[in-house]
């Protein structure tokens, strides 16, 4: 409690947070950003995540001053910067496509902003040395841009962004054109740099794996609106809607339209593939939260299993449709007459195409959503309680 107090006091006296207040951006008839309220806490690494066209790029343009909001305000600390143009905001951006000036060499690129700002030469040199060392690019300061590999270019771009000590450092899908290994390496660099420099960072991506792997917090956007904001793991464990659940996670969640019912004393869930028996406490909680008997059941593949032997009422009979090897695990697609389900099982368990198997449900990890609005009705707490059932893939996410 006292921690919360000091936190709030800090906010009041030393509010360096960056805020979008009712920010709206309209292009003709298209509302790219709808009344967005978002606070970026000072020195955090916030990831703005969403599918393409969700308004995340417009949001970054608003913050950088490259677009002016149609409505609403933007604050850097207590200062209203809504009408401050980009060149006066001290924001750095690493863009996705072009991140460097092709007509300048590495050093000229890095120092361009400082030269414009007429920073004294000795300060420029000192910052150049520090930043180059931080990014490990000391060796190629005099190279031309076209002589650099994709990864080296992004390192130079990050150096260029950091050398001016920005108030806010934005990265707009900076690694999406790089190969997977390089992407992972540079993500690690970003996290390290963030720890080291304590700069407020906004990382924009459509890749949920990338988001989960680096974020302090994630702001999830869809169609110009903020859908959910919170620590990375919260978004995975307690997705606000069924859409969030299917967007975030190592494998796409199984979503089933089901009906709740009670047979005698035994509560059950009627799925399109058969009836499943369920424990009373979970059933009660879901039923309390639900507005009707029809709900949506979310079963993450990483918490689902397959077995050869049936446990009547606790598994669904399915047929193996296809599989993908994921190293020590295998992702199976299995189907019944009317639905397809996904399950991730250890590689030690082996099933053949066409095998008749049983899809096992772990109720302790099941997510429940309203069948019409898609809002979360009930999510189990994964971190306390069901400790023995730690998600296989989620462990890799943290």
């Amino acid at each position, binding site marked *: 409690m006292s921690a919360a107090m000091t936190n709030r006091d800090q906010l009041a006296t030393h509010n360096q947070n960056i805020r979008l207040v009712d920010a709206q951006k309209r292009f003709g008839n298209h509302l790219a950003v709808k009344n967005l309220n978002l606070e970026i806490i000072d020195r955090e690494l916030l990831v703005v995540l969403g599918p393409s066209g969700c308004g995340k790029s417009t949001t970054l*343009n608003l913050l*950088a*001053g*490259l677009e002016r909001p149609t409505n609403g305000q933007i604050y850097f600390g207590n200062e209203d910067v809504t009408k401050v*143009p*980009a*060149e*006066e*905001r001290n*924001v*750095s*951006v690493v*863009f*996705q*496509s*072009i*991140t*460097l*000036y*092709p*007509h300048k060499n590495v050093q000229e690129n890095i120092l*361009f*902003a400082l030269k*414009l*700002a007429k920073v004294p030469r000795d300060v420029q040199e000192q910052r150049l040395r520090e930043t180059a060392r931080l990014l490990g690019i000391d060796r190629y300061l005099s190279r031309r*841009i*076209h002589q650099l590999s994709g990864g080296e270019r992004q390192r130079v771009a990050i150096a260029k962004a950091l050398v*001016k000590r920005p108030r806010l450092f934005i990265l707009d899908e900076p690694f999406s054109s790089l190969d997977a290994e390089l992407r992972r390496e540079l993500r690690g660099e970003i996290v390290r740099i963030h720890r080291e420099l304590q700069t407020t960072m906004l990382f924009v991506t459509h890749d949920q794996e990338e988001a989960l792997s680096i974020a302090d917090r994630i702001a999830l956007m869809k169609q110009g609106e903020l859908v959910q904001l919170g620590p990375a793991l919260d978004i995975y464990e307690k997705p606000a809607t069924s859409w969030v659940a299917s967007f975030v996670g190592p494998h796409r969640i199984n979503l089933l339209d089901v009906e709740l019912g009670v047979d005698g004393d035994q509560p059950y869930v009627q799925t399109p593939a058969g009836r499943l028996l369920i424990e009373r406490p979970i059933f009660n909680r879901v039923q309390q939260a639900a507005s009707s008997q029809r709900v949506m059941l979310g079963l993450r593949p990483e918490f689902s299993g397959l077995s050869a032997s049936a446990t009547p009422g606790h598994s669904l009979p399915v047929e193996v449709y296809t599989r993908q090897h994921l190293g020590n695990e295998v992702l199976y697609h299995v189907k019944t007459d009317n639905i397809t389900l996904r399950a991730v099982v250890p590689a030690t368990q082996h099933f053949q195409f066409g095998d008749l198997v049983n899809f096992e449900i772990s109720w302790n990890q099941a997510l429940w959503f309203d069948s019409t609005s898609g809002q979360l009705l009930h999510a189990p707490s994964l971190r306390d309680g069901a400790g023995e059932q730690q998600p296989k893939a989620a462990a890799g996410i943290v």
Partner: protein
Amino acid sequence: MRSPARTIVIYAGVALLVAWTLVPIYWLINMSLSHQAEIVQAHFIPDHPTLCNYVRIFSDTYPCKALDGSPYPAIGQATAVRQGLINSLIIAVIVTILTMAVSVPAAYAIGRLTFEGKGKLLLTIVMSRSYPPIAILIPFFSMYQKLQIQGTILGLIIIYLTLTIPLVVWILSGFFSSLPRSLERLARVDGCTPFQALYRVLIRVAMPGVTACAVIAFLTCWNEFTFALMLTPGSSAQTFPPALAAMFTNVSYPNENAAAALLALIPVMILAYLFQSRIRGLNLVDPL
């Protein structure tokens, strides 16, 4: 692997193209360095190479001797040649500067900004190059008579701008629009005002295109013949191409004519040599 036969075919094709382009020029050089007596029996290399053809087109008084020792008569074109070269140079330089000053901002606006009627504007500009320039000679002629700028350098500059600006705006706007969209945005977050983003970043990146366009504007003026022939003959504003044409009809010395024709090629060669990499770079869509 490329087969030897294929390589031979490719090189043969290249050789043919080079010959196609360069043999007439080689012949021109050959003639310009030969004595008049030698062109009756053509030599691939002059037996008695001489610069006297070049001397004679610039000077009517310098004594040049033929192979048999007799002096060549004066050809009487020195003033027209000198004046023509100077006029051509002045006009081409001024027109190039004015063209670039107008076209770069215009092409930037058309290539990178969005505004009402942009497509129609570009179409109008391109359309002005769609008809043969000679078609507008008559209105220009009568206007120039009223304004009394017929036979003046100013008159030619104005009319040449109508040729170069549309062409350059057209080429450059395409070049600007092919540059990555993020360039100015990157410049803006680096601290450039919109205007600085244009001249400190965008134009620098577009330099191959800008240079190539300047060369095109220069050569358009340098090579222009029709308007110059109609508007300036006999005046002090006559440019080099009509002077050259006059030589061809007035002077019966092919060697002198060859030397004069070569003079017209010199600026073209210099520009091509200086800017070859940049002109080649014009087809560069991604400058990275």
